[in-house]
């Protein structure tokens, strides 16, 4: 019972904050709403016994990525006029209606599936040890590829954002 209550609180607040991210005009307000959304999704991860992922979500997403966003927003220090007028062409609205429609159909279809419970989990599921063994065992090659992605992202970000590279 407590689980259901927690799920509905976390889930509804996460969706509400996601809507705020998209709807709010000021990017800073959107970023703060996104931080709240990420914390709530981390709560959902913890409810799914993915405790390490919940910690990573808070540390990397809410801690690092969102701070980067806030830095850039404050660095740009946008005034109202610099944003320009939004151009809402009919095709965009059509696309939005299509997304909403297909999303609703998807959710209705999901709710008509036979519900299977979350079942039992093996010992030590979602701990640092389990994830570590996975990353350094079965996913060793993707893990090393991730380090190359991060390295090229660092170099790329510096090369793109630097005023005078040479």
């Amino acid at each position, binding site marked *: 019972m407590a689980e259901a209550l927690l*799920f509905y609180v976390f*889930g509804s607040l*996460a969706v509400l904050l*996601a*809507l705020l*991210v*998209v709807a709010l005009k000021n*990017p800073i307000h*959107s970023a703060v709403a996104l931080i709240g*959304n990420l914390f709530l*999704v981390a709560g*959902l991860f913890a409810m*799914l016994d*993915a405790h390490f*992922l919940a910690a990573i*979500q808070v540390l990397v*997403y809410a801690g*690092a*990525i969102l701070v*980067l*966003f806030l830095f*850039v927003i404050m*660095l*740009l220090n*946008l005034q109202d006029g*610099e*944003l*320009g007028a*939004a*151009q*809402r062409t009919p095709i*965009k609205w059509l*696309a*939005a209606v299509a997304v909403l429609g297909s*999303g609703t159909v998807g*959710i209705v279809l*999901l709710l008509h*599936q036979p*519900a*299977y*419970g*979350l*079942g*039992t*989990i*093996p010992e030590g*599921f979602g701990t640092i040890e*389990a*994830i570590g063994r*996975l*990353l350094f065992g079965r*996913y060793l090659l993707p893990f090393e590829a*991730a380090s190359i*992605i*991060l390295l*090229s*992202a*660092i170099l790329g*970000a510096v090369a*793109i954002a630097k005023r005078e590279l040479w």
Partner: protein
Amino acid sequence: MITVLHYLVVSFMLFGIGVLGVLLRRNLLILLMSVELMLNGGNLALIAFSRAHGESSGQGIAVFVITVAAAEAAVGLALVLALFRHRGKVNADEFRELKG
């Protein structure tokens, strides 16, 4: 009882809201945040299925998704900075040089 479908519905909604943000907003910063929302919805689905099957692989892949999200945010924000420096605008509709 909370089943995996409940989590999938939340994941669907997060992803759909992210798509709506990319479609309807023109502020590049909010576009990037909407992409983060979509990645987050995908992560939630991965972890829900990982929990439902008692198999850790989904969590390993979610770690990689978070890595890619970090790289994407860093490069994307660098691009926003460079564009703002050259044009003084962060409106995606202003940048249409590559449009045929």
